[in-house]
């Protein structure tokens, strides 16, 4: 792939976000970094991660819908490109604060499937030994410091982590991942303000999936672009096609390098779509059928697969092998989790109090 001119790799009819959202967007193919700008190993890694994220989501969805798996889940299906790009751009010691819609982010940052599924299904092998649940998965060993269940709660925590890195003289970067709805909360604005003021090593990664729970962005904000909010804090704001992993790698790299060099935070708006609604089982009656159809057509995993094959970067057989490996990994992890013991009642105050003896009953 390296050195191959890539002008022909994007199908001319590739759906852009303009068609998907009705918003003017960043999806002009002429502005997009092309596939040849990526090392072949990076392109392959992006596809591996995106496929694993999709497969893990598909398996959960299938299991929940048949009654095999009893858990609650906020699907990330459709947002894989953002998390994969983050995954290939961050170092293992960089840190992440994500949300309840975090399966893709967790996989991107390197959390194991057993830890993730174990937590969702209440098993001792879960990341928080099964007592946190889907909304509260943390894995500090790989830099995932927190998943929050409250919209907008993550950015201030990420500011604290970034402040710690700065004060300790570490060159690690913190990413706060959140949705469009979070940018309407006071906590987001306070966090953005302080991060900019103190030039903190932070990337504010907004996964704008066009709906805050069930409310479309145009009903909750006057501005069209979340990225425009950055100007109010004196930080760069960049809007990028959140379904294009190549453009995302370029944008995330720039934001991470800026943060790591001590030049402060960036607000990165990645425009995407949730293909399975707010929560698993969401009938999605509030989403216009034509919008959902366009979003399905713009599925980032399938788009990237076609792009890799179309450019000659990978063969369909290469990608089939990656797909099969993802299915095997997911099934193996699920089998391990289902064979693991449920979380014991004795876990209930573990890691809650340093010394529970003097705490009120």
């Amino acid at each position, binding site marked *: 792939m390296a050195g191959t001119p890539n002008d022909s790799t994007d199908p001319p009819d590739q759906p852009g976000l303009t068609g998907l959202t009705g918003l003017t967007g960043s999806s002009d193919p002429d502005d997009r970094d092309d596939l040849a700008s990526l090392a072949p190993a990076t392109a392959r890694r992006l596809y591996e991660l995106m496929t694993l994220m999709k497969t893990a989501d598909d398996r959960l969805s299938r299991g*929940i819908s048949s*009654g095999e798996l009893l858990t609650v889940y906020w699907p990330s299906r459709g947002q894989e490109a953002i998390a994969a790009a983050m995954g290939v751009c961050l170092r293992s010691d960089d840190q992440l604060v994500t949300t309840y819609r975090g399966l893709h982010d967790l996989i991107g940052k390197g959390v194991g499937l057993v830890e993730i599924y174990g937590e969702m299904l209440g098993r001792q092998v879960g990341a928080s030994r099964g007592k946190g649940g889907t909304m509260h998965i943390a894995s500090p060993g790989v830099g995932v410091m927190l998943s929050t269940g409250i919209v907008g709660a993550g950015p201030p925590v990420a500011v604290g982590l970034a402040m710690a890195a700065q004060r300790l003289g570490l060159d690690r970067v913190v990413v706060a991942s959140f949705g469009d709805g979070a940018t309407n909360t006071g906590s987001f604005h306070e966090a953005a303000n302080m991060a900019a003021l103190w030039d903190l090593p932070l990337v504010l990664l907004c996964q704008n999936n066009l709906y805050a729970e069930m409310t479309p962005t145009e009903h909750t904000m006057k501005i069209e672009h979340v990225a425009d909010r950055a100007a109010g804090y004196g930080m760069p704001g960049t809007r990028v096609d959140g379904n294009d992993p190549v453009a995302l790698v370029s944008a995330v790299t720039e934001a991470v390098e800026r943060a790591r060099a001590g030049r402060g935070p960036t607000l990165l708006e990645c425009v995407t779509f949730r293909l399975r609604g707010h929560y698993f*089982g969401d009938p999605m009656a509030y989403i216009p059928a034509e919008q959902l159809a366009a979003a399905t057509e713009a599925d980032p995993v399938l788009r990237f697969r076609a792009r890799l094959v179309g450019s000659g970067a990978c063969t369909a057989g290469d990608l089939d092998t990656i797909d099969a490996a993802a299915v095997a990994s997911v099934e193996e992890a699920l089998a391990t989790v289902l064979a693991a013991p449920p979380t014991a009642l004795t876990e209930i105050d573990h890691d809650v109090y340093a010394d529970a003896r003097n705490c009120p009953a």
Partner: protein
Amino acid sequence: MADFVVRIPRVSVAISEAELVDLLVADGAPVTEGEPLFVIATDKVESEILAGGTGVVRWSGSIGTVYEIGEEIGKIEATG
């Protein structure tokens, strides 16, 4: 391959029970994973549930009964 236990699924976040409103495969009939198997109703929304396994269906649940989420209503017995 082990039998697949058919349970009332948690098809939505804020539900604790569901009514079994239809069985789409007769007792003793074969089913293939992914085929429609039964219908439940929650909050006035009906959901068609797909088979999670392949084999012969044995129902223990009955139409018109309200079940807790996770309650067993049958099995898909693996064949062969």
